[in-house]
């Protein structure tokens, strides 16, 4: 068994109202970024899981999403091994 660091992203389904995304979009535009076209806000959930393999870890996390982490009525999800994103950091 090893410890895997997974990342789950939960995102409002396309077409569904995203009040938070809308508000942030408005705020960014009035702060001087008219080039922002659209904003959607979801969740990033980081899981530290003991599993026998990468595949096993991802399967487990997927099951957790189906059961709890995402609401199929309003949200889509993705699961992956966590890695540093390419790009800038704080």
């Amino acid at each position: 068994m090893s410890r895997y660091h997974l990342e789950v992203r939960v995102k409002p389904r396309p077409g569904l109202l995203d009040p938070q995304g809308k508000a942030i979009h408005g705020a960014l535009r009035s702060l001087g970024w008219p080039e922002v076209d659209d904003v959607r806000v979801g969740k990033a959930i980081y899981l530290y899981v003991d599993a026998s393999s990468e595949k096993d870890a991802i399967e487990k996390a997927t099951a957790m999403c189906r059961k709890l982490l995402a609401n199929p009525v309003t949200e889509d999800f993705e699961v992956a091994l966590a890695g540093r994103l390419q790009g800038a950091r704080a």
Partner: protein
Amino acid sequence: MKAAVISFPGSNGDYDLYKAVQLVGGTPTFVWHRDKGALKAYEAVLLPGGFSYGDYLRAGAIASLSPIMEEVVAFAKAGGPVVGICNGFQTLCEAHLLPGALIRNEALRFASKHVRVRVERTDTAFTTDYAKGQVLSIPIAHGEGNYEADKGTLERLEGEGRVVFRYVDAAGVATDAANPNGSWHNIAGIVNEAGNVIGMMPHPERAMETIVGSADGRALFTSLVGSLTSSLAGSA
């Protein structure tokens, strides 16, 4: 009426619901979410407002997977009356006893005030003591009461007349200005297909006595008591 008031960790409206049942002559009992085989003895199941599990992740999500919810589902499937208020409504949606979901209020702020809601149906077990079209003053207090569902579900709800309460203005009109949270079609409360499970964001249990600002919620509880009595009489 023997009513089970379910308490989840983080429920805080359970006490008010308990008092409301007592005020209309019912017999409430707190049922802890881990209690097993607890619901058999009751005629109605009430899910209170509050912040079950802090409403962390999504309002009602963790509570919908609590041990007691399997029994609530069975109770509802068997036709028993189930009332979910505020967090209880959110939990019923998460448990798929009611369709749709309650998402963040459009203004992104918690909304606490007395709102007006119109009674759309009086033929449910929860509304017989109201008049159709009656406008009630009832408090809301929620951050996630914005009712959303996919288009098909929404059309079905309206088509089947399953919207029980709608936010309206003083004149009884469902305007945008009267909508406190952005809910689709000003929806404040709905029932399931069978009509025995109701979910609503406003708090009728907080509108039981004029000293706290309104007694307009009382009829919801008297309706429930009345319909249980008449269905008992019917089956006898």
